[in-house]
């Protein structure tokens, strides 16, 4: 693994220093994010928000955390003890683990040892983040199941379905990045964005990822697993005290993790943004960590902004959006990116030829969209006509009863899929009459 240079050569004490550093940073970032979220949302709602404890209320979330930890622990009678106990632990552990491969900066010198500002890296570290995220889901789903109560179970089911669905779109949005970076390791991907960020050249991937990351972290407007109007608190309804605190911690760390991953994959990681990058030593020493932190904070602000702005989606619309819009779009985009790569690298088309091909492709797509639009309109008209016809006929099989398949002697009400059959029957009847 020569390409990984200094990774894996750290002395043991440096590994411990890095692990502790990441742990402390994540806990502090969680405390800060909670305060930041409450302040920003307050401002958006014409309130002031927490401003009593510490300067500007900065210590509010610390105090809330202490209070939460000292609260009474309540164990539901119907809970499955072992699983109930281990679920928040899985959630929180997975949240911390994902940060092992996030690069904060280039090589620096710590106590005289040259080392990259990253705990570790290996050829598939982006896949590692995905793997850890899928282990984290176990925490939610087990919490829902082991609480022995209805609402948590429903919340757990919802969050599983949601995270699995949006993980697919998320994974697909990575493919284009891998193709362009030629690597799945986070440090290599950052370095591959030296002249230009992937968010610019791979804009659709970036947009898909940003949408999927909100769904993945169960945040508004995709916070259906904890929709308080429907499910009380979702999977953590029955949790209290420290165990609840662990879930809370995991949620905010996950927010930071997906933001950090977005920064790494699309916004050039720790590389300085344009006007600053003109300064020669912008990408050396400890400075890059500042750019990294600023970029992550921008994503976190977007999370808060979305929460303050958008209403929650309906569950079925949300799933439809994930499966029928996000995934197909991601697939098509991946194919386009791969095709362009092959045309340029192996068929050796020039940029002009590629441009012409692109224009032709866009024209074809527009024509296709036009045809589809026409079909959709016709279908809409058909549906309206059907509805009108239905309203006229109104024949219920057994009025008010549970819908069951009709007996052979019964006629059944018209449904869209039945239209072909009805026509056939009508023709047959006509033939018989004649």
């Amino acid at each position, binding site marked *: 693994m020569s390409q990984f240079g200094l990774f894996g050569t750290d002395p043991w004490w440096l590994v411990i220093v890095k692990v502790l550093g990441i742990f402390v940073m994540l806990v502090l970032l969680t405390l800060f994010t909670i305060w930041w979220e409450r302040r920003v949302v307050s401002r958006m709602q014409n309130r002031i928000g927490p401003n009593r404890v510490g300067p500007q209320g900065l210590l509010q979330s610390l105090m809330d955390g202490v209070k939460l930890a000292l609260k009474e622990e309540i164990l539901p009678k119907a809970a499955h003890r072992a699983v109930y106990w281990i679920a928040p632990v899985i959630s929180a552990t997975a949240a911390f683990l994902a940060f092992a491969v996030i690069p904060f900066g280039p090589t620096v010198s710590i106590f005289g040892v040259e080392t990259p500002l990253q705990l570790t890296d290996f*050829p598939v570290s982006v896949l590692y983040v*995905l*793997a850890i*995220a899928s*282990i984290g889901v176990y925490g939610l*789903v*087990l919490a829902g*199941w082991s609480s022995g109560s209805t609402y948590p179970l429903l919340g757990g*089911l919802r969050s599983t379905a949601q995270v699995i669905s949006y993980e697919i779109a998320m994974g697909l949005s990575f493919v284009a990045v891998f193709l362009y970076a030629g690597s799945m390791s986070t440090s290599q991907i950052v370095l591959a964005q030296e002249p230009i960020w992937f968010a610019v050249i791979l804009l659709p991937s970036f947009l898909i990822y940003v949408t999927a990351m909100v769904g993945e972290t169960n945040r508004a407007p995709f916070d259906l697993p904890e929709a308080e109007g429907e499910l009380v608190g979702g999977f953590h309804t029955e949790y209290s005290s420290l165990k609840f605190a662990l879930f809370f911690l995991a949620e905010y760390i996950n927010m930071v993790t997906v933001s950090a991953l977005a920064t790494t994959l699309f916004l050039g990681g720790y590389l300085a943004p344009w006007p600053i990058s003109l300064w020669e030593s912008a990408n050396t020493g400890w400075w890059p960590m500042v750019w990294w932190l600023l970029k992550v904070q921008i994503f976190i602000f977007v999370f808060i902004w979305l929460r303050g702005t958008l209403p929650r989606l309906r569950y079925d619309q949300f799933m439809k959006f994930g499966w029928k819009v996000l995934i197909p779009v991601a697939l098509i985009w991946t194919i386009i990116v791969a095709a362009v790569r092959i045309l340029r690298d192996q068929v050796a088309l020039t940029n002009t030829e590629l441009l012409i091909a692109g224009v032709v492709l866009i024209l074809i797509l527009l024509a296709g969209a036009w045809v589809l639009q026409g079909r959709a309109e016709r279908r809409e008209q058909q549906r309206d006509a059907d509805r009108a016809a239905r309203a006229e006929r109104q024949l*219920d099989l057994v009025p008010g009863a549970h819908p069951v398949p009709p007996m052979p002697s019964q006629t059944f009400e018209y449904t869209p899929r039945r239209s072909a059959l009805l026509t056939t029957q009508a023709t047959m009847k006509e033939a018989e009459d004649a």
Partner: protein
Amino acid sequence: MTEAVSDFNLGETIVFWVCGGLAVLGALGMIISRKAVHSALFIALTMINLAILYVANAAPFLGMVQVIVYTGAVMMLFLFVLMVVGVDSSDSLVETIKGQRFAGLLLGIGLGLLLTVGIGSALTTSGDIGLTAANDAAGGNVQGLAQLMFDDYVVAFQATAALLITAAVGAMVLAHRERWTPRKSQPELSEERFRDGGHPGNRPSPGVYARHNAVDTPALLPDGSTSLDSVPGPLRARDDVRDVDPADVDEIRELTKGVDS
């Protein structure tokens, strides 16, 4: 081979014994535990430990994909189904098919033998060129796997994919149910709700203006009469509605005198 053995360092040995032990424990627990959900959890434990062993054996891609696909998606679907089917269902130990256990034992031993012989012969007869040489030949572990899957064995790979998709589509066809009545759209549902003069908003909560807010205490309307709408239907059906103190009614009437109701 001897060279490879001497390559083991202390860390690798510790990882092997810890993860190997946990994987075996998980496998045993999966067979022994009575609850289906516990079995699923144990098998997830085994899978994760195997993934760590893969990574330790310089197969990082395989390890990660194992966790993403098997632990993250397949086992999660299992859990999903178990949770939906029954929160407390435990397996019955009655043999439903005659001779099932004996056949299972036979097949298990057969599979074990096949695997042992297959892997054993592969290890002894194929000349191994060493991990570094194999990885370097393709320019990396992931690149090497990609070369094998999308170049050398692309037909087998695509055939497997086609098989899996056929299975998924088949399951959907088998589970498909025809709708016998049309699905009502949201506007239709909302029209239906109000067609027979439904109440457009929340009903008044019990005890509004009254001196007591128990569910069986009806709310008082501004003119002093009681609102039966505020008491839950079952209580009304049982005639379990509490009488309101006439003094309260008088007081309300006094208070709201002159107010348009």
